[in-house]
């Protein structure tokens, strides 16, 4: 097999793995429905928050389209949400007041009160058993940063209980929406092309294709790498788990519009060099939407973090690098990937048989009383 041909076969396998790792469409829509309902509750006319015009929007992997299935059926999906109070100003409130306002409104709803977990440092968490954790992050506008324009027009201020307790009263900054815009800009060309392609295939207009239905090779590659990290770290107990935002940021920064998942994974992994993530001798992975923030700011103080990170990168390089491309057939790719990603390959067993996990039994339609026939003996 030619090299490029192999890459495309491999890419297909990887794509299937990523598809299987992705949140299902029904779960996705379910989650969307759930958080929209929370948003509605917070902003209802009789809600004390309504004058602040609250808005709920997703952040993190759910917004980026890089969610992956939890490791076991018992684990739940993490859905990170921002509860943004547009009209509340920093000058007229405090971190604890903001946090309490949102928490009190959630507690005023019978069901949410039951689902509410213990108060987190920054978030309120709703636990939907066996389904999702919804982390709700109270936030207000960061008017100072917003005035600078660009991606910063979405900058927010958030609360941190721990920081306040330690005597630091400065509001922590964040910019999840700006980050999402940056991420989208990294994959825009490919995204637009794929969306058009799907629209044509189903004979619909581009606007009728919901954005969540499109998955670019960048998103697929991130899903694969995150899953590999989960499996790798679950086997290597002493490793510090590389955080998703670092993987995502490095991946999206290096993405050059590759149309194939395998090449994307490969280029990401081999693009991570000491040089690429250091500045003036210090680890530096800036938040593209918030230049003051360094995702690797703890690395210099805690050398285990970069050590674990590079060990993971090296392991991923052996899995997705030459070792994989040398394997000749689809079955062997499949087996190798099964081992590293901890899920079943569709290419093994001809890929077509159900393998493991809880099967979905379909109820036979009770009104369908069929009598089989045979044309065999005329």
């Amino acid at each position, binding site marked *: 097999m030619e090299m490029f041909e192999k890459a495309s076969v491999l890419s297909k396998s990887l794509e299937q793995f990523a598809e299987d790792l992705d949140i*299902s*469409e*029904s779960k996705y829509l379910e989650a969307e429905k759930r958080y929209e309902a929370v948003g509605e509750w917070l902003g209802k006319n009789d809600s004390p928050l309504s004058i602040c015009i609250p808005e709920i929007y997703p952040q993190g992997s759910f917004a980026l389209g890089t969610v992956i299935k939890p490791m076991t059926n018992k684990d739940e999906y993490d859905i990170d949400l921002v509860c943004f109070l547009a009209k509340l100003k920093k000058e007229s409130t405090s971190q604890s007041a903001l946090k309490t306002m949102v928490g009190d409104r959630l507690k005023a709803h019978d069901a949410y009160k039951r689902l509410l977990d213990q108060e987190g440092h920054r978030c309120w968490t709703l636990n939907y058993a066996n389904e999702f954790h919804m982390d709700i992050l109270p936030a207000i506008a960061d008017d100072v940063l917003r005035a600078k324009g660009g991606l910063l027009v979405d900058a927010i201020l958030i609360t941190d209980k721990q920081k306040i307790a330690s005597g630091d009263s400065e509001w922590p900054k964040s910019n999840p929406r700006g980050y999402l815009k940056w991420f989208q800009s990294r994959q825009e060309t490919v995204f637009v092309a794929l969306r058009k392609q799907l629209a044509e*295939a*189903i*004979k619909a207009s581009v606007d009728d294709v919901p954005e969540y239905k499109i998955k670019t090779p960048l998103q697929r590659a991130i899903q694969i790498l995150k899953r590999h990290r989960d499996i790798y770290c679950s086997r290597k107990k002493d490793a510090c788990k590389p955080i998703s935002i670092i993987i995502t940021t490095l991946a999206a920064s290096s993405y050059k519009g590759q149309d194939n998942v395998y090449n994307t994974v490969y280029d990401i992994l081999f693009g991570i060099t000491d040089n690429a993530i250091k500045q003036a001798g210090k680890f530096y992975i800036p938040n593209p939407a918030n230049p003051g923030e360094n995702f690797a700011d703890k690395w210099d103080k805690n050398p285990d973090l970069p050590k674990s990170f590079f060990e993971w990168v090296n392991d991923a390089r052996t899995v997705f690098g030459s070792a994989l491309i040398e394997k000749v057939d689809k079955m062997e790719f499949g087996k190798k990937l099964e081992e590293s990603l901890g899920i079943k390959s*569709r290419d093994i067993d*001809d*890929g*077509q*048989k*159900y393998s493991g996990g809880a*099967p*979905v*039994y*379909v*109820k*036979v*339609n*009770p009104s*369908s*009383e*069929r*009598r*089989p*026939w*045979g*044309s*065999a*003996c*005329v």
Partner: protein
Amino acid sequence: MCVESQCIELRKKYPYLFLEKKNDGYLIRGTIFLEKDNVKDRYEVEIRVVSDYPRKVPTVKETGSKIDPNFHHNPDGTLCLEAPLTVHEIFRANETLLNFTDNLLVPYLYIHSYYRMNGKLPFGEHAHGAEGILADYKKRFEISDDLIVLGLLQILAEGAYRGHHLCPCGSKKKLRNCHGGCIRNLVSLRFNFMKDFIQILGWLKKERQFNVVPYISKRVKNVITSLKNVPNEKWTY
């Protein structure tokens, strides 16, 4: 809806079915899990969707060697889900893979599981070949006489329904006041009754030494000649 989006819809309910593009259409392969009452079972299947789908109804092979080849198969090894008219009736009502799977394939698989557990079929079965088709028409017309059914079927096959003609059932009433309603319902299904008609003629001739000559119009003759030239259509006359 194109086959891809139909398959997306299908996979929401049957997540272990997978779509493959082939030169002459698509192949949907995978596992179906089903349950009803005491029956809980799984089957490996291969659903073939040819390029002129939905004009051609999908065909299915069972690939897990669970269903005995003597249990309601077609000569080409595909599963014989129901009598052709019933297949047509159900599939034309909603030409989607989900409808096909829900209302034809899964019920067939259920019947097989039931049969393996209980040694009998839950809703009975059609006799094989033309005999089964004839019996099905008898039931639809609520008539037990072979010849009368043949007469009604001839009207359908020839597309010759006229409300003022006498009803072949011997009631001496006009068709529109007798079995006409039943015929018009069947006409509205837009099914090709000619094949069934010819098959039944052949069977009556062979098994009942029935004189079919008066039924062989020019049109029927032409269809028989053309069918004889089609490979895999092993019909006898």
